[in-house]
C-alpha cells in the first residue's frame, strides 16, 4: 500500500469539488445582490444545480474516504498539529454537507422547488414559510463564510507545509506522479 498519496479517485473528487465550490460560492456572492430579473432566476437555478452536484459528490467522497486508507501525515508534525488538521478536515466535510442542505431548506421554505438540471424534481424538505426561508438564507450565508475561513486555513496550511516545512505535503493531493 502506497501510503504517501491519496488514490486517484480521492484526488479527482477533491479537485472537482473544490472547483464546484469556488464557482458556486462566487455565483452565490454575485447573485445575492442582483435585482430581480429573468437572469437572476436563471442564475439561482444554476447555483442550486451546482449545490446539488456538490452535495452528491461530497456524499460519494465521504463514502470513498471511509472505505479507503488515508496517507499518513508527516512524522515531523506535532500531535496537536495533527489533531488540528483532523478537526479542520472534519469541519470542512460537515460544511460541505450542511451548506447544500440549508440552501435546499431555504428554497423549500420559500415555496420554490428544486428541479435538478431541469430534469430531476427534488422533494420540498419543509412547507412554505417565509420566516424560515429568511432564517435558512441567513444560516446558508453564515455557513458559507465559515467555509471560506476554513478554506483559507486549509490553503494556508498547505502553503506552510510546502514552503516553510518543505515536507512536500501537497504531493499527496497532486494529480502527477504515481496514482494508486
Amino acid at each position, binding site marked *: 500500500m502506497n501510503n504517501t498519496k491519496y488514490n486517484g479517485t480521492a484526488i479527482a473528487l477533491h479537485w472537482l469539488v473544490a472547483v464546484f465550490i469556488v464557482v458556486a460560492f462566487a455565483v452565490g456572492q454575485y447573485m445575492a445582490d442582483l435585482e430581480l430579473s429573468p437572469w437572476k*432566476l436563471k442564475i439561482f437555478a444554476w447555483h442550486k444545480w451546482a449545490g446539488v452536484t456538490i452535495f452528491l459528490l461530497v456524499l460519494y467522497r465521504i463514502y470513498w474516504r471511509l472505505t479507503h486508507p488515508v496517507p499518513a501525515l508527516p512524522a515531523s508534525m506535532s500531535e496537536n498539529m495533527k489533531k488540528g488538521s483532523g478537526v479542520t478536515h472534519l469541519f470542512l466535510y460537515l460544511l460541505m454537507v450542511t451548506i447544500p442542505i440549508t440552501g435546499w431548506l431555504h428554497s423549500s421554505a420559500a*415555496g420554490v422547488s*428544486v428541479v435538478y438540471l*431541469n430534469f430531476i424534481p427534488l422533494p420540498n424538505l419543509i412547507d412554505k414559510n417565509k420566516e424560515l426561508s429568511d432564517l435558512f438564507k441567513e444560516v446558508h450565508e453564515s455557513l458559507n463564510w465559515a467555509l471560506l475561513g476554513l478554506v483559507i486555513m486549509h490553503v494556508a496550511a498547505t502553503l506552510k507545509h510546502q514552503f516553510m516545512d518543505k515536507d512536500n505535503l501537497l504531493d499527496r493531493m497532486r494529480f502527477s506522479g504515481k496514482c494508486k
Partner: protein
Amino acid sequence: MTALYRTTLIGLALLWAQSASAAVLLDKSEIRFICKQMGAPVEGRFKIFDADVVFKPTDLPHSHAKISIALASIDLASDESETEVKGKNWFNVTHFPQAVFQSTSIKALGGENYEVHGHLALKGITQDIVVPMKIHTLSGMQVAEGSYSLMRTVFKIGEGTWADPDTVAEEVVVKFKMILAH
C-alpha cells in the same frame, strides 16, 4: 301587531334569508397557485379575497359564484418577488387591484363534478373561462375545489423582459378551495 311579534317576524325572515344562500368561510378557504420558474414549481397564494357563492345542486340555474381577489395580498417566495409581481410588468395592482371571476352558468357533469362557466377579469382583460369544480361534503359543510390553468400572457401578466416563457412558464395553475357553510 305588537312590536315583539314584528321583531320576531323580521328576525325569522333574516334567518331564512341567511340560510337560503351559503356563506363562504373565508378563513378556511384558499386560493393558491403554482407557476414554474426555470422548470421548478413555485407555490404562492392570495391571502385576501371575497367570495359570494350560492350553490344548490338541485337548483343550478340559481346557483352562482363571484370571487374577487385582492392581488396585492399575494404571498410568494420573498418580499422581493412580491414587490415585483405587484408592479407594472405583472399585476400592476395600483391600476388593477382586483381579479374578479363571475360565473354565468354551472353545469352538472355527474357525481360530484361540475363545470363553472364565467368571466375572469384580470389586468383590464376579460376572458370567458370554464373552471372544473368538485363538490363534496365535509362535516356538514360543502367544499368546492378545483383548479384552472391560466395562460399568463393572455392577461399580460409578466410583460417586457418577463415575457420569455423559458424563465417563468406561460402556464399558471390556480387552485381554489371554498368552504361553504349554510
